């Protein structure tokens, strides 16, 4: 007997109407209908769900791990683009620390 594993389907779950479908995991299944049937029991046994998507894993075109560093990391100093880069933020943080409070991480 060869490989008995079925193709992989990625599973996306929507908890409430209007919210995004969020990736929750994957199932093996012979076809989309069976993938949905099996995904329901793997991921919606408990908890909220109003909609479930299954997507053939092979339909996902993904970035390559070895490119991640060059593709996503910023090489140059770009703090000025983020709110935390403002000098006033630092002053507020110092003031709050002196008074025993803390600023949430942005």
């Amino acid at each position, binding site marked *: 007997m060869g490989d*008995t*594993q*079925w193709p992989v389907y990625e599973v996306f779950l929507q908890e409430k109407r209007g919210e995004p479908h969020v990736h929750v995991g994957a199932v093996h299944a012979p076809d989309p209908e*069976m993938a949905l*049937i*099996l995904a*329901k*029991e*793997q991921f919606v046994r408990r908890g909220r769900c109003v909609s479930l998507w299954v997507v053939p894993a092979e339909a996902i075109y993904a970035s390559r791990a070895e490119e991640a560093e060059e593709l996503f990391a910023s090489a140059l100093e770009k703090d000025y683009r983020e709110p935390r880069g403002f000098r006033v933020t630092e002053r507020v943080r110092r003031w709050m620390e002196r008074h025993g409070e803390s600023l949430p991480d942005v």
Partner: protein
Amino acid sequence: MGNPSRMSEPLREALGSLLLAMADDEVLLGHRDAEWVGHAPILEADIAMASIAQDEIGHAILWYSLLHELGWPDPDRMAYFRDPPEFRNATLVELPRGDWAFTVVRQFLFDYAEKVRLEALMASAYRPLAEAAAKVRREETYHLMHSRAWVVRLGDATEESHRRMQAALDLAWPHALGLFEPAPGEDLRVAEGIQPPEAELRARWEAEVRPILEAASLVVPEAEPIDGGRKGQHTEHLAALLADFQLVARSGVGETW
């Protein structure tokens, strides 16, 4: 009709015998399904079957609880401390789990029988039963999707899957007809609007399952029903099942968990 204390004794008996048949069917099928835990063909199917097993046992508790309200012992006592002749399940659910094809075919035949029964009971004159039937019917939607999908796929997937599915249907069909053997007191239940006749339920069930089996390239055998379960007559498999199923409860009588 919703108050057991205002019910005549024969009616209480008649209602109880229906609930007992339904509860015993569910608890034993739940146990047979649970035997797949750790053994199903793939992990996902294993988890789905375990969930279905839990659902069936949950339904059993519901029917046993309604029975308890009518004066029968509590659900644990009913499930764990009765002997084979006291069980009123159809023989379909006591048969060994067999291969995956048999499991799928049995579940399919049972799920549709439950569907037509619940849909009829949602209009039952006994209110607590009608309300419970509506609740369980919602949960059955998934079971129907699940078992129909397996039957349709395995029925004509490969030569081997077809052969196994046909053998499973040949074995299961006459026992499945036994699901519609009337439990004692049917005339009274029908007259009081508690349920339609079993023969009517069977006709509705056949109208649902035959086209699906046909679409799956399976041939429904010509066979007489294997009745007796509703009178406590069982196959030799029930005793072995109960020995396993009741072992822990009976070996620790009076223990607290």
